[in-house]
């Protein structure tokens, strides 16, 4: 396949769409796993699940795959955004949306940056956090007792939801699938993910 595919505007968009959908799939799996936090068994099921993942032989390859996909997504986002800025050096005095532009669609790069910062902190806190004094569940519970962290976490999850709202239907449009069903499904999924990930820290930090 000729190399220009990946440097062309359409190739880049398809790359964005495919990497984005893979990451979307990861988020769904991650939320399903995290729902074990709600079980009310003092974290036994959650810890067992974490142990299962840590000892799984495919964990490292899967993580490497996700890292590559994520970095590619970030690289393409930066590249596309820079080209788009260059394409309109002088803006309009008056602007008005009459099509499908919304808060989510024109803030993708900013919501993306917030999610990127969140991800780095999230990995540092939990994946590479200090678990010497207890299990992962203990670490998660203790972390969400800190109000500041809890607030930042919930806000970041709402930003993630906004990012995913535009992302889902946009990815399918790029991959030539466009329908109202996809739009509705995208809205439902982004609400489930944002509210699901946002609810867990509230449950562990306040409600429990």
């Amino acid at each position, binding site marked *: 396949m000729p190399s220009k595919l990946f440097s062309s*505007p359409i190739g880049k*968009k398809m790359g964005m769409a495919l990497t984005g959908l893979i990451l979307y799939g990861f988020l769904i799996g991650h939320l399903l796993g995290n729902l074990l936090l709600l079980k009310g068994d003092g974290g036994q099921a959650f810890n067992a699940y974490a142990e299962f993942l840590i000892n799984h032989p495919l964990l490292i390859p899967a993580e490497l795959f996700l890292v590559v996909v994520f970095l590619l997504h970030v690289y393409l986002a930066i590249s596309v955004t820079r080209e*788009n800025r260059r*394409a309109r050096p002088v803006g309009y005095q*008056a602007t008005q949306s*009459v*099509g499908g532009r919304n808060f989510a669609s024109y803030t993708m790069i900013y919501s993306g940056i917030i999610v990127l910062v969140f991800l780095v902190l999230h990995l540092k806190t939990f994946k590479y956090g200090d678990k010497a004094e207890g299990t992962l569940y203990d670490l998660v519970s203790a972390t969400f007792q800190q109000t500041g962290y809890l607030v930042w976490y919930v806000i970041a999850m709402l930003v993630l939801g906004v990012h995913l709202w535009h992302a889902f239907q946009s990815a399918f449009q790029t991959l030539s699938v466009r329908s109202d069903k996809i739009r509705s499904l995208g809205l439902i999924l982004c609400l489930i993910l944002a509210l699901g990930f946002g609810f867990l820290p509230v449950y562990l930090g306040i409600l429990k």
Partner: protein
Amino acid sequence: MTEEQSRRKRDAGQSDCLSFTISIWRQQGLNDKGQMVSYPLKRVRPEMSFLEMLDVLNGELERKGEELPISFDSDCREGICGMCGLVINGVAHGPGHGTTTCQLYMRSFADGSTITIEPWRAAAFPVIKDLVVDRSAFDRIIQAGGYASINSGSAPDANSMLISQELASEAFDAAACIGCGACVASCKNASAMLFVSAKVKHLNILPQGQPERHKRTVAMVEAMQQEGFGNCTNEYECEAVCPKEIAVEHISFLNREYLKAKVAGK
């Protein structure tokens, strides 16, 4: 204003003319920085087209003799040539739906309001003067592949190439593009994907376009990139302002065609 209201006003000795403040982009030339300038304008009749309103404003500027008239593009003034194109109050071709700037009437604007008029904004469409932009980037994209090579030596037999009504309609929907550039102007990324997709589709789905199908797709996408248009981020603003209501489904088609052409090794 309805006809009935106009008649009542006339009977009562009142004028049904409208007044506006026209805030307009003035730029002397390619390298001039340019700025917005406001002009009060009275005695605008509701049935005037937007371009006629600009003609009236230019008449006043000429009479005063203090400033040069405002330069703007227009040709057929019936919505088919694609020459006129202004961003009016932040919307390409203004508030009408499926219409060009020349098909917009002054009754669409509230009496006494300020109307902001700007040229298409894109690095690939440099402003030449006031509201006139250079859209030859579109011509170069067409030159790259927006044609079908057909032997014109002798007249072909009638009905030797059968095309279904459905296919002809689909191709015509895409061919309705007049190349005005509103899609680029309305896109926050100044992307020309709707234009290129329409041009690729109307040739790629017809039998006459088949021999050059993959070559055309790749050449036109590459030309689009070289001209410095941005990338599509699926906001569908282009579809909303397109005077010929070209749908973004064509962009999905272009994406598929491009991938097919690359797989075919073009």
